[in-house]
């Protein structure tokens, strides 16, 4: 099953490489990985999406917790949560394609953030499925370039991941 694990990490050099190293050493999957400092500059927040059996996921969380620089973590998929990913897509846009793309972008609540006579650059945020859906809708033949940030997530309601 796909999981979103959110980690508070000491903002120290080398801490990220330990997390990434752990996944490759122990043969765990990483599908996406995002990391950035938080409002507390001594902490980074890292989000990793992975897949595995319940047993593997349990090991992943235990092994992550064992890393000295991991302060706290939560498997967001255990409760209701919000997940977001940002995507920028460069699309071929000439002639009648331009209106067609504009319509699709509107349906997906995206924005065209840059325009030339032959290219649109589209920005889209949402869960990963929505971004996949957009790519399908416009078709890969028109796509010149895709960049995705990977998933960030946060629990719904009162629950917070903090010290």
């Amino acid at each position, binding site marked *: 099953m796909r999981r979103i694990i959110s980690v508070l990490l000491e903002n120290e050099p080398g801490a990220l490489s*330990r997390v990434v190293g752990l996944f490759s050493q122990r043969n765990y999957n990483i599908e996406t990985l995002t990391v950035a400092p938080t409002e507390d500059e001594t902490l980074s927040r890292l989000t990793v999406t992975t897949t595995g059996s319940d047993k593997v996921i349990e090991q992943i969380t*235990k092994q992550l*917790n*064992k890393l000295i620089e991991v*302060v706290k973590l939560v498997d967001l998929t255990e409760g209701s949560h919000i997940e977001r990913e940002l995507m920028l897509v460069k699309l071929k846009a000439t002639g009648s394609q331009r209106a067609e793309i504009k319509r699709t972008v509107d349906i997906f609540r995206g924005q065209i953030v840059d325009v030339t006579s032959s290219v649109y650059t589209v920005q889209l945020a949402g869960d990963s499925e929505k971004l996949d859906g957009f790519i399908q809708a416009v078709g890969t033949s028109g796509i010149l370039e895709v960049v995705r940030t990977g998933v960030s997530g946060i629990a719904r309601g009162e629950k917070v991941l903090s010290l």
Partner: protein
Amino acid sequence: MELLSGADMLIRSLQDEGIEYIYGYPGGAALHIYDALFRQDKVKHILVRHEQAAVHMADGYARATGKPGTVLVTSGPGATNTITGIATAFMDSIPMVVLCGQVASTLIGEDAFQETDMMGVSRPVVKHNLSVRHPEEIPEVIRKAYYIAATGRPGPVVVDIPKDMTTPNERYEYSYPKKVKLRSYNPAVRGHAGQIKKAVDMLMAAKRPMIYAGGGVILGKASSQLTELTKTLGFPITNTLMGIGCYPATDKQHLGWLGMHGTYEANMAMHHSDLILCVGARFDDRVTNATEKFCPGARIIHIDIDPASISKTIDADVPIVGPVDAVLKEMLSLVKESKDKPDADALAAWWKQIEEWRAFHGMRYETSPDVIKPQEVVEMLWKLTNGDAFVTSDVGQHQMFAAQYYKFDKPNRWINSGGLGTMGFGLPAAMGIKLTHPDDEVLCFTGEGSIQMNIQELSTCKQYNLPVKIINLNNQALGMVKQWQDMNYESRHAESYMESLPDFIKLAEAYGHVGVRIERKEDLEPKLKEVLAMKDKLVFVDIYVDRFEHVYPMQVARGSMKDMWLSKTERV
């Protein structure tokens, strides 16, 4: 406050940490530190002949004393030479701190002379590593390193020290922190009371219980608690290769050790048990054999300080995370208070069954009128040393024979590389022990393959007068490899035969020691007595043993715990 250079702060920190010995080898990036060592006499430095040996020495010391060992090496090749030793300690959860010189911080990343990314290279085989970014941090970094190495599930910690952190003329205020606090590292201090209660109820209700103890009992200094609990319950007990000595081997409740080369009775009892109390062990593949066939009727209570060890390979019914000594103590008082008692009838029937297994096989081997069997060498040395020696081992058949036929009644006496299986471990580990236990007998069981992986340390033994006894069970082959080739590759001995062996007697003599060769069976006892009588000499005893011997029992690959070869021809 005192003003000290980074190098002096480092050495002062070691003094304040109570470090007696460090094992190491100098080089450019570590020279400021070596100079600081030279100008004091509290911390004694042992100069090895290869950095790997320094780590194994620190490791042997740590395993025998329960205190973290300390290593000091230079950058680049000095640091990379320690990796096998660090990985050995990591696999067996041995506390140690490895101090590595590094090129100056201004040069890092420029492929400077003797630069390697030791933080990156060591990362997968350390509990943690730390790099010094400012000389003033040194006391805190050192305190943290020892704290992390020795607490929770212990392990090796590497400290990377760029040369400009130890510059002689830059001085800073020195004070050694009494305490460290790490918000992200809080090992459990006691087990969950509800889980412990649940476990005790299960123990009382069990019909065919087994206690399965591991190296965690020794690391957690919980042998006396384990022994008392086992005696109180009257249950059978087995332990892993790493747990040898955690419960007296000569006691009748002890079934020997379990797993690939464990005893018939221990493996049978595990397979047929209905409840396993696992204490500080980790259901490793050399114990469980095929996990899907593992002990089909058993429920499992698993006590461990490391939550990641629990339900990693075999699912636990009752997990208990905590220090083994504290958890066992709590269990014991619940057992004593409990109105319930273990089911006496069921237990009697269970013991009857176990005694039948024990009588069927026990530990046995065929003796021969003229050839020396490796097992009998071990047995004889066990008797001649009253079972009270510190025994280190290398890796191979001799390791298994030593573990099977030397009966350890005390913890911290059987010292071997169980997890990584590192040939070359035995001699330096023995040296680390002898240094701090000069009045104890220290034996190193080895093979002619393994001993040559760190034979250069005979020179270190001369320099520091370390009269260990090297027992070379010479079968003129990489015996364990050959055994697998006999069993799985129709005896095609690909590269497992050691031709052109050195004359070990002359070699020992060249290093200034004594060499004794034993080839005839009738010489074995008198010569071993002579060897042990040479208290102040390192003696290299080269014993020609049966070249065709195999280690048995041996679990059948991909079988259950009870599927074993008992000899070359008997399979159960």
